[in-house]
């Protein structure tokens, strides 16, 4: 085992840059005023986001919010029209190649090489990611273990199940032990068991101090895994914080759900809102956030509530106006 010495020049590569480790206070990701347009559509609209090193940040947002576009700009596969992007202090896209060497990317849409086997896919990326020659074999074996594909090395990607492909896609991004991992909806379409396994991987990455930016539609997932979540809507971050803080700030501790009688949800909703409460509707059911603060005089006129703890989903729906899984 070797310990990297900061600033060391590598043997046999006199011209290579020193192995530099950025100081810990430099944010892993920094986006300032980032704008991305596609024709007349502004997909990302003045995005500001800072992710410190070692933080797992969940990026939550409805379809079309600009999550994938943001991820693409971080790998310079999409170029921002305005704004500043830095990864570990290095400007993007100018030094994007440097950044990509330290970054693992799990794209929303699978781009595994279907013509190659599991093992060949990983081997090829071990080259692309510059895994040192002596460690390539081991890195590939480790990735296959991690994806529980140890005995499927010779299977063509085309013949893998959906869940196996996704696992392979994820471990491919971890081959070079990146300091920063971007995951765009990594658990979509996975069965609950595999999803839980993957949660284990993300937790382990966090324990190792890896910075993770993960977009997801599963609120429960974001709540469980993220140190912080950022809510994105219409191309910008609308709110950001730890799940607990966000829930406390926007939804209090309790939600009360009312099923209105003859007078209908509209009347009920207006009545509650007049008192400054936030509500959301699911079908005919009216949910009142921060219900612990409802005055009894008002509650008596609403009917019999069903009480539950406030969740991040309540916050999401309130802030983005959209519902989610």
């Amino acid at each position, binding site marked *: 085992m070797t310990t990297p010495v900061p600033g060391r020049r590598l043997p046999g590569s006199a011209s290579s840059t020193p*192995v530099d480790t950025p100081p810990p206070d430099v944010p892993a990701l920094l986006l300032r005023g980032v704008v991305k347009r596609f024709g007349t559509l502004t997909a990302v609209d003045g995005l500001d986001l800072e992710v410190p090193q070692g933080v797992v940040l969940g990026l939550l947002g409805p379809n079309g919010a600009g999550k994938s576009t943001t991820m693409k700009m971080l790998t310079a*596969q999409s170029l921002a029209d305005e704004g500043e992007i830095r990864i570990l202090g290095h400007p993007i896209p100018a030094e994007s*190649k*440097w950044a990509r060497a330290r970054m693992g990317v799990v794209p929303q849409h699978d781009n595994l090489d279907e013509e190659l086997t599991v093992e060949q896919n990983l081997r090829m990326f071990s*080259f*692309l990611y510059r895994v040192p020659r002596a460690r390539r074999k081991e890195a590939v074996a480790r990735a296959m273990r991690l994806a529980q594909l140890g005995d499927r090395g010779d299977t063509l990607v085309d013949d893998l199940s959906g869940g196996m492909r996704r696992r392979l896609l994820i*471990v491919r991004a971890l081959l070079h032990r990146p300091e920063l991992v971007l995951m765009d909806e990594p658990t979509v379409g996975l069965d609950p068991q595999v999803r839980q396994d993957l949660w284990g991987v993300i937790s382990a990455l966090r324990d190792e101090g890896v910075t993770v930016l993960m977009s997801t539609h599963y609120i429960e997932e974001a709540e469980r895994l993220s140190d912080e979540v950022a809510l994105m809507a219409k191309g910008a971050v609308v709110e950001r914080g730890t799940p607990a803080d966000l829930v406390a700030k926007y939804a209090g501790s309790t939600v009360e759900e009312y099923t209105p009688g003859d007078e209908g949800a509209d009347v009920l909703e207006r009545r509650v809102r007049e008192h400054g409460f936030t509500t959301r509707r699911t079908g005919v059911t009216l949910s009142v956030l921060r219900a612990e603060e409802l005055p009894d005089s008002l509650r008596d006129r609403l009917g019999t509530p069903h009480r539950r703890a406030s969740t991040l989903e309540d916050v999401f729906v309130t802030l983005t106006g959209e519902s989610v899984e």
Partner: protein
Amino acid sequence: MSIQHDRARDDARPEVHARPGRIEADAVIGVVAREWILYGQSWRATTFAAVVEPTLYLLCFGFGMGALIGTLAGFSYIDFLGTGIVAVSVMFQSMMPAVINTFIKRRFLHTYEGILAAPVDVRELVTGEALWLAMRSGVYGCVPLLVAVGFGLRPGPGMLLVPFIAFLAGFAFALFGIWISAVITSVRSMDYVFSGLFTPLFLVAGTFFPLTELPAWVQNAAMANPLYHAVELIRGSVFGGLGAGAALLHVGVLLGFIVLMWFLAGFQMRRRVVG
């Protein structure tokens, strides 16, 4: 899935950090590695095609036409044709897959999306793809020559230059093909490429017959055809008789073509894969 804490995390970290603005061997090798791995599965078919095609051409044209023609531009027809087919097969082995495979990898397989999320830039990608095809051309370009020897082509020391010429020409045509693959937007437009570009390129190059009988303007246009220069070089080295000046000119044209196409292919590919 559980992460093994068996090693220090830095162990497998990339050691040579990607430097912007430079073509790095590792990135190019990574791109070539993919093709090399695939070749490990497909070499039988590739080799079969590389042997059977020129054999059939030489059989049919060599005997069918050779009997009627006898000698051509001072060569026996089998000598003329055998060397011409080397150049044609180089073009088929490099430009064809460059157009088709590169297009498919970009548009349908999303291969490049994956590669470009790793520390590889578009120029390295293009260089790697072309390099692989050029190396393959360098090897397989010799096959028709060997077949032609079987048909009666006189072997000589100049033949040792053929792999290098085939490599150079293969690199030029591969880059040309990659550029085209990044220009076209659908599989349908490949018809235009093959009929409108491919066919005239390989017909008007002095491969099957000398250019001398063609109208002057066609002869002039052929000077811009890299295949013509490849054919001249190959014939010149196999049979001798090519002056140093002429040889330099042909090599120069091929090199110039490579530089031009390298820039065009990189530029156009970048426009396609970077949003």
